[in-house]
């Protein structure tokens, strides 16, 4: 049976840090090749904050399988079909945003994991298995083992409930959406605020207690990344394609402008 491994999940199982390239403006299967060429482990295909269609998401996911880059999709909402459709067609992981309660975390598990863990509906002809016809019991077991489910903590309410959320069977990563969380706390953009570290401590403690991975989201400043990664986060994105283009392009334009200013 040809099963494509979830390299990101494998690395996390060894306690290593995994890095994702967030995809917001790319629409071609080159996304994974670019992520590979720039030493990432996964692509974080962002449907929440982009206008990309299911078709583009799935094209990028299928190509990533053969590139050795784990395709993980941040879905738009909590409806079961949002996760199930991308997982059926090539994604190996789902990030569900704005999960505030253990009930919502359980709903995400139900959408993403097959019975007995959840209630995902069975499809066939999976690119993850090189389209081999796999007996349903094996397919369900392998998919359940292989797929990575991350839920995002983005409100004070979610932080309050983080222990119960982390305790939910089937959740692999508890990922802090720091940007939205700070906005909800009335601290827009204050990534170095002392309350941030308090929240992170709470999330990391809950993850340790329940054998889950803690994910650091939204923090881009290198010094802050260093400080917070030391706390125990293992799952993060480096930045978005758009941000890298903006940074690289404006840097180059600045250099060229400087050349001609004298």
């Amino acid at each position, binding site marked *: 049976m*040809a099963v494509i491994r979830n390299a990101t999940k494998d690395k996390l199982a060894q306690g290593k840090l995994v890095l994702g390239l967030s995809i917001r403006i790319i629409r*071609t*299967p*080159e996304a*994974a*090749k*670019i992520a*590979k*060429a720039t030493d990432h482990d996964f692509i974080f295909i962002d449907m929440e904050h982009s206008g990309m269609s299911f*078709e583009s998401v*799935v*094209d990028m996911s*299928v*190509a990533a*399988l*053969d*590139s*050795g880059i784990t395709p993980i999709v941040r879905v738009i909402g909590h409806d079961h079909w949002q996760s199930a459709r991308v997982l059926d067609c*090539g994604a190996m992981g789902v990030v569900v945003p704005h999960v505030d309660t253990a009930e919502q975390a359980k709903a995400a598990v139900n959408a993403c994991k097959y019975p007995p863990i959840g209630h995902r509906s069975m499809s066939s002809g999976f*690119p993850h298995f*090189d*389209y*081999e016809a796999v007996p349903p019991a094996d397919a369900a077991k392998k998919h359940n083992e292989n797929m990575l489910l991350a839920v995002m903590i983005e409100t004070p309410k979610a932080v309050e409930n983080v222990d119960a959320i982390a305790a939910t069977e089937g959740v692999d990563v508890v990922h802090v959406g720091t940007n939205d969380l700070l906005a909800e706390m009335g601290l827009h953009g204050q990534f170095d605020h002392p309350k941030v570290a308090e929240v992170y401590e709470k999330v990391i403690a809950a993850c340790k207690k329940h054998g889950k991975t803690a994910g650091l989201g939204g923090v881009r400043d290198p010094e802050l990344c260093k400080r917070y990664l030391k706390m125990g986060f293992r799952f993060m994105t480096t930045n978005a394609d758009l941000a890298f283009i903006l940074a690289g392009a404006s840097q180059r334009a600045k250099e060229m402008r400087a050349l001609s200013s004298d």
Partner: protein
Amino acid sequence: MALIPNLCKEKLKAGEIACGIGLRQARTVDIAKIAKVCGFDWLFIDMEHNTMGIDTAVQIAVAGLDAGVTPIVRVPGKQHFHATRVMDGGAQGVVVPHIDTPEEAAQVASNCRYPALGHRSLAGGPPQLEYESIPPAEMTKVLNENTLITVMLESPTAIENADAIAAVEGIDVLLIGTNDMCAEMGIPGEFGHDRVVDAYDKVVSACRNNGKFPGMGGIYSHDLMERYIKMGCQFLLSGSDISFLMAAAKQRTSFLKGLKR
């Protein structure tokens, strides 16, 4: 340097056959993986006989690179950009249809090979090199070596000129478009006709004399495939997505309708 090998070209050089699947209906990148899983060596992404857009053709090509199935595009025409845009995007070769003369073949080689072999224009960091930025002298050399350029011989004139076409530097494969060739010969569909056998004989020896690889297109009956492969054809069009889908689908409906109720 991270070069993705041209597996099809390697097989041809090793004297093996290389099986290609024609893509007419597929429009998603899954087809690259599917072709690989089914045992094909190369993708014949067809832009001549369907309406596939260049964007789709290139996306399938890029996916083919990492799937381990060599992406080759049959371009719709002879203008340089037909070939260069798909190769810039990710294809590891092109098939140019309806080439009748060595002059036309030389133009194809000129369009598709970087200087000093030809006059293809340089683009930056291609997916075939994992987007690595390498010195142009090295990049053009490596890509010239790892790209497979095929011309299709599809008329009596082309067959007459086979030896001169095979002699053109920069052309790797002479592929017989048997269907069109038979139509042009006034023997449409007679794929086992003596004149077809003669044409294969002529093209195979032209290739042998010039260190090129002969190819077979349009032949799908097993006995004729075997015959022309035994004559020396290596670069093979094995069928298309639509033909395989229809064959399997017909078999299934026929089974179901044949069941006693």
